[in-house]
Each structure stands twice: as structure tokens, then as C-alpha cells.
């Protein structure tokens, strides 16, 4: 598995290219990593980023999943 540095680089590249669907996936990956480490606040930051970019990209299923994740942590309506 690539390290966080690599993920950061891919996220920056996604911002530079405006690939919002890809950014959603990358932020979701970062969220899952943080969640696995028990860093819930940090995970919810990444899940929020992923949720917004999924909405923007029209990735309906991904947005629904991410919203459900955030709702489960009491972070979204």
C-alpha cells in the first residue's frame, strides 16, 4: 500500500486537474485510513471532503454512502 505521502500527492494532483470524482475516491481512502487508526475527527474531515466532491461530480451512490457514514458519526443531516 502506498504511504500517506503518496496519497497526499495524488490528492494534490486531483485538485490540480479538477477530477472531482477521483478526488472523492482519494479523500474517502484517506478517511478510511484515519478511521482504521481510530482518528474519527480526522476521518470525518476526509469523509466530508469526499462527500462534497461526490456531490459535485454527480456520483450519487458514493455521495449517499459517504453521507450515511457521516450521519453515523453525527456529522451530517
Amino acid at each position, binding site marked *: 500500500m502506498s504511504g500517506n505521502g503518496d496519497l497526499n500527492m495524488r490528492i494534490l494532483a486531483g485538485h490540480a486537474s479538477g477530477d472531482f470524482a477521483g478526488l472523492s475516491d482519494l479523500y474517502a481512502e484517506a478517511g478510511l485510513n484515519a478511521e482504521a487508526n481510530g482518528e474519527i475527527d*480526522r476521518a*470525518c*474531515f476526509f469523509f466530508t*471532503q469526499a462527500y462534497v466532491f461526490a*456531490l459535485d*461530480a454527480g456520483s450519487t451512490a458514493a*455521495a449517499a454512502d459517504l453521507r450515511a457514514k*457521516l450521519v453515523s458519526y453525527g*456529522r451530517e*443531516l
Partner: protein
Amino acid sequence: MKRLNQSELSAVMAPVEKARGLPNAFYTDPELFELEKKTVFEKNWSCIGFGKDIPKPGDARPVTFAGIPLLTVRDRQGQVRVFQNVCRHRGMKLIEEPTTFKSVIRCPYHSWCYELDGALRSTPHVGGVGRNTHPDIDRDGLGLFEVRSKVWMDVIFVNISGDASEFDDYAGHLMERWSEFDGKQVFHGGPNSSLTFEVKCNWKLAVENFCESYHLPWVHPGLNSYSKLEDHYNIVETNAYSGQGTQVYNPQLDATGRRFADFAGLSSKWDAAAEYIALFPNVQLGVHRDHFFVIHLEPLDVGTTREYIEIYYASEDMCGDAMGDLRAAHAAAWNEVFAEDVFVIEGMQQGRHAPAFDGGKFSPVMDTATHCFHHWVAGRFETG
């Protein structure tokens, strides 16, 4: 700003036989132009664009109208909506360029997201990092500011102030007059059927020239051969619209005998009739049995106006490649007519700087449509 003189306004509102035209300041005074944005454009139903420019759900265009940033968008149900182009959070302008929203309208600043119907969908990190809610953030009360809008004949009208009469009342006389065209599906001819002029005159001069036929034999001599002055008639609906009509419209055939298809179901009146009407304040329409056009006047400043001219046909078949050359020739013919008008509307603008000019003297017979428009404008200032 020159103080508005009530006696001058009263002179404009007198019967056409005795009336004077609007004073010079209505064409030259920047402060009066600013006042006009409120009293004329914001308080009435004004044109801001065309539905054909946002054809699919999610399509959106920014529009600045009377200095107000607006956002036009086609929602998921296909309805055109108009919002003030501003995020409810920090007042950021939401879009700068035409775009297609895939799902939501996302503010580029802090990514507050809105549905295409304006409802606030998401407020990321609003309650702290990774916390997207807060008791004091009531999403239900923070949707986009929607502007009253109505699409008719593919024209997007807005009433910024929100307190004009219903559009169907505002334009009801014209909708009734043209009921045979109302509700029909129309097809824009494509890029070659769009014309744009930027003219050095106040927007009102473009209206005034459009709605009268008096100038036709002098400014458009080419029309004399098949559309003589005596074939035209005045159209006057006080406090609503004015224009002119002709009784000898005759669609031209090309060398191979092709012509555009007629709108279905028209009565015999429209076999040879065509009408050209200015719906106050800033839209002009021309209907014919086989096409119609719309002119949207965008006032840029007191002495500059942009004209967007769009030509529509009766069926999709008229808009395909097979008719492309005919549409191009058609647009070129209209372009020639509109171009012939530029020197007179710009010349009248220059004339409005002559201090002795007193608004002018109307022909009681030939200028009734022009006076109808002046009367309407003056009335906005009496009531505004």
C-alpha cells in the same frame, strides 16, 4: 442628476397630439440610468436571456442584469429557475462562466452546496472540522435567493422586486393577441441564427425605432418593393406594449423552391401578416407564419446597449444541416435590416446631447407606438 421635472413627465403622458417625448436626461444622465434600473427594470418583467442557452437539466449561465449578479439554471424537472448568483454564507459569487452542474451548485469558496432548486444541501465543516451541522445553521432558511421568473416564447423574464403583477397579467394582452403562437414548441436555428450588436445608444432608442414603421421607406428602402409603408399598421396597447404589423408578409423561396415550414394550426390571418412588438421594457419580438425572432436589449450603461437577436423556427427539421444554407441566408437578411437601423439609433443618441432638444414632436398618426412606449416609461417614474 437633473431633478425629475413632473411637468416634463406630464407632457410625455399627454395625448400623442400634444405630447412631448422623454427629456434628454432619460438618454444621457448616468444617475437617471441608475434610477431606471430600479423603477423600470427591477419592478417590471424584464428579459435576461433565453431558455435555449440552458437546454438540459443542470445547465447554468451567469447573467448580470441591472448590475445584479444572477444565475439561470435548468433544474432536474426541466424548469428554468433564476437565483441571485451569491452564496448565503459569505456572499461569494457562485459561478463566473456557463457550466453544467452534475448534481449540486457548489460555492467555490467554502463548498456550501445547493440543490438545483436552490435548497441548501450541505454545509461542510460548518460546526468545526468534520462536523457539518450546527444548531444555529438552519439549512431550510438558507436556500439561494430565488428571483421570480417566467419563460414565454423561450424568453426568460424576471421580476427582481418580486411585486409586479403575475406575468400572465403583465403580458396577458400580448399572449392573447398571439395565442396562436403561444405554447407551441419552437426550435432555435443554432449558432447561425444568433446575431449580436453593440450599439452606442440608450436602450430606449432601440425600442423606439423597433416599434414604428414610419422610418421603413427611408432607412430600409429594400423593403419598399414588397413591404410598403401603407401595408403596415400601428399596434398600441397602453401600459403594456406597442409595435407595428404588416399585411404583406411573403416568405421568400430559395432557387430550389425551398422555404421554412409554417407553425401548425395558424388561422388565415397569418398567411400574410407579421407583427413586430416591443414588450416593455426590454424585449422585442417578431412573429411570422414560418419563424419568429426575439431581441433582448441589455443596457450596458446609459449610452450603450447590447442587442441579442435569436431566430426560431417551427420544426426541428428546419434546424438541420439540410436547411443550414437557407437559415444562414435568412439570418443574413435580418442582419442587414438590423444593421441599417444602427446609424439612426446612434444618431438619435448623439442628438440627445443637443440642449435645446425638448423631447421632440410626435406625428399623431405615425408615432403612436413610440408615444405609447414613452408614456409607459414616464408612468414608471410617476409611480416608481
